[in-house]
C-alpha cells in the first residue's frame, strides 16, 4: 500500500465517522470540523528522522509467538536453577509458588474447575512470552539487566518446573517456540468480534 493510499484511507474513515456522528444526535458542526482537521493533519510537517535497523536494535526486543526476533544462544533448566534462586525466588518462591509475586508453577488442568490456579504452566499460551517478559521486565528491581543467555536459562527452568520441558532440554530460537503450552487451545481471540459471540460458540 502506498503512503498516498494510507492517507486517503484515513480521510475516508474520518468522513464516515463524521457522517455517522451527524446521524446520531451529535453536533454536525463538530463532526465536520473534526473531519476537516483530519484532512488537514494528513499533511504533517514530516519531521520524523529515518532510522536504520542498526540504530533501533537495542529497542527492538519484542519476540513474536512464532519465535521471530529470538536472539542467538540457548540454555537449559540446569543452567537456570542457581540464577532463579538468586534473582527470582525472593518474590516468586523457591519452587515457583508461595511468594508475594505471581505463582509460576502448577495448576495445570485446574482452569475449568472451581479453584482455577493461573500460572505460566497452566495459563500462558506461548513460551515465547516468557522469554519476552523476563527480558523486558524482570527482575522487578533491575529490569533489562539479564543477558540473553540468562533469560534463556530462566525460561528453561520455569518451563521445567512445570514439567513442560526436561532439565537438560536446551531452549533456543528453535526449541522455545515449539514448546507445547497446555492451555494454548483454550485461548480465543475476540477481536474483531464480540465477547457474546465467543461465548455463544
Amino acid at each position: 500500500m502506498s503512503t498516498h493510499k494510507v492517507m486517503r484511507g484515513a480521510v475516508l474513515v474520518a468522513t464516515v465517522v463524521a457522517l455517522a456522528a451527524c446521524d446520531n444526535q451529535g453536533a454536525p458542526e463538530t463532526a465536520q470540523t473534526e473531519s476537516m482537521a483530519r484532512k488537514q493533519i494528513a499533511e504533517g510537517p514530516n519531521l520524523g528522522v529515518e532510522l536504520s535497523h542498526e540504530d533501533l536494535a537495542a529497542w527492538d526486543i519484542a519476540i513474536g509467538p512464532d519465535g521471530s526476533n529470538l536472539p542467538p544462544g540457548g540454555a537449559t533448566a540446569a543452567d537456570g536453577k542457581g540464577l532463579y534462586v538468586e534473582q527470582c525466588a525472593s518474590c516468586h518462591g523457591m519452587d515457583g509458588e508461595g511468594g508475594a509475586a505471581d505463582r509460576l508453577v502448577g495448576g495445570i488442568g485446574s482452569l475449568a474447575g472451581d479453584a482455577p490456579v493461573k500460572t505460566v504452566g497452566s495459563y500462558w499460551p506461548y513460551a515465547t512470552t516468557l522469554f519476552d517478559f523476563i527480558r523486558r521486565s524482570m527482575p522487578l528491581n533491575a529490569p533489562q539487566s539479564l543477558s540473553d543467555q540468562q533469560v534463556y536459562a530462566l525460561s528453561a527452568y520455569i518451563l521445567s518446573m512445570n514439567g513442560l520441558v526436561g532439565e537438560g532440554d536446551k531452549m533456543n530460537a528453535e526449541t522455545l517456540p515449539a514448546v507445547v503450552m497446555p492451555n494454548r487451545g483454550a485461548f480465543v481471540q475476540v477481536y474483531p468480534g464480540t465477547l457474546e459471540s465467543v461465548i455463544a460458540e
Partner: protein
Amino acid sequence: MIKGKDIGGIPGHELEPVAGGGLLHRRLFLRGGGVMAAAFAVPGTARAEKLEVPAWTKEPEGYFKGYGARSKYETDVMRGPIGEPNALYASGPGAIRAPIHALEGMITPNSLHFEITHNGIPDIDPNQHRLIIHGLVKRPLSFSVEALSRYPMTSRISFVECAGNSGALISPRAVPGTAQTLHGLVSCAEWTGVSLAVLLAEAGVDPKAKWMLAEAADPSSVSRSVPIEKAMDDAMIALYQNGERIRPSNGYPVRLLLPGYQGNMNVKWLRQLKLTEGPSQTRYETSRYSLLLKGGLVAQYKFPLDAKSVIVRPSPGVGMAGPGLYEISGIAWSGHGKVRKVEVSADGGQSWAEAVLSGPVMSKAVTRFRMPWRWGGSSAVLQSRVTDETGYEQPTRDKLIAARGSKNFYHCNCISSWAVDGEGSVTHVYA
C-alpha cells in the same frame, strides 16, 4: 401525585413520582432553578443565623501563585487508597483510584486522575525521549517530543478505564467498599495530540501490517498489540491532558490514546510502535487482561469497554442527613460510543425511571446523569443502568455471571447496588 404542600408548601406545585422508592420526574430539574431551589428547601428545619462580616473580607491576604492549588478546605478529596509500599521494592505494580464520589461534571482533574503502574513512574527527560515507528513500514522513523509538538493537533474528551475496574463485583459476597474503591479506576479528560494516522502515513505502512505493538519506556516496558484499524481510526499520540502536558503518572511526555479501549492499551510513556502481521501475544494480553470464562475458555483481545454506569452520590460514605429531597448523581460511559440513556431504580431494580443526562454527551466520554429523589427515611436500594447508542444495556450481576462465569474479573460492567438504611447510611450490596 404528591401535592406541593408535602414538599414545602409551594402552592400549586406538584412533584410526580416516576418509579418506586421516591424517584421523581426529571422535569423537576428541567423546570429551572426557582422550582428546584424551592423544592429542595425544607422550611422550618433550618434557622437563619445573624450575619457578620467575616475576617477574609476585612483582612487582605494571599497573592498569585505560578501554579495553582485548591482550597485548603478541600484537601480531603484524594485519590486512594495508598497501600503499603511493596515489601521488597518501593515501585512495583500498583493502582490508585479517583475519588469519583467527590467529583462533579465529566472531567477528572489531572491531580485526581486514576493511575495504574506496572513498575513505578519513570522520570522521563522530554529532550531525550523518542517515539519510534518501525517494523512493517517503508521508513522506520524517530520523533522527538519537540518534533511531535509541531504537528497539527487534535483534541477529544475521552474516558480511560482500567479493564479491572469494578472487578470486585465478581466476589461471591458483596465486598464492603465505596464508589471510589470499587469503581474508581475510571477517569475522563480532554486529550490533545497528533493523530496517529498522520505519523503512520509518514512512515508508510506495509499492507501486510495488521497489528501494531505499542511499548512503554517504563521499567516494565509494558507492551500491547493494537489492531491497525484502530491505529488508523481514532488513535492519538497524546501530549496534553486537560490543556497541560500529560502528568508523569499518566504517561509524560507521550501516551497512546485509544478511545474506548481497555486502559492499559492506552500505553503511557510511549516509546515505540512496531507494525507486525499478527498480535505479539505479550504478557499483558495473555496472562493479564484476558477473560477466564466458564469451562476454562480464555477470551483475549476483547478491547472496547462495554457500557457501565454507577451512582456516586449517594454512595457508601456519602449518605443522607435526614429525610428530604436529594439529587442522585452518577457517571456513565461506553467504549462503543455515546450514552443514550441512564435509568435509575430506588427499589432494587423493580421499577426504573430515566435520569437527566447533564452536560455534553460525547462518544467514549464520561456522561453525568442526575435524578431527583425524595428520600422518606426508609430503606432503599439504589441502582443505575445505562444503554449506549448501539442499544446495548448494562447487564445485572446475575446475567453477567451467568454468561461469563465467576472466575473473571476483567471487563466487569454489571449494575451495582447501594443499600440505604433507615439512618441514611449507604453500603454496597448485591440485589
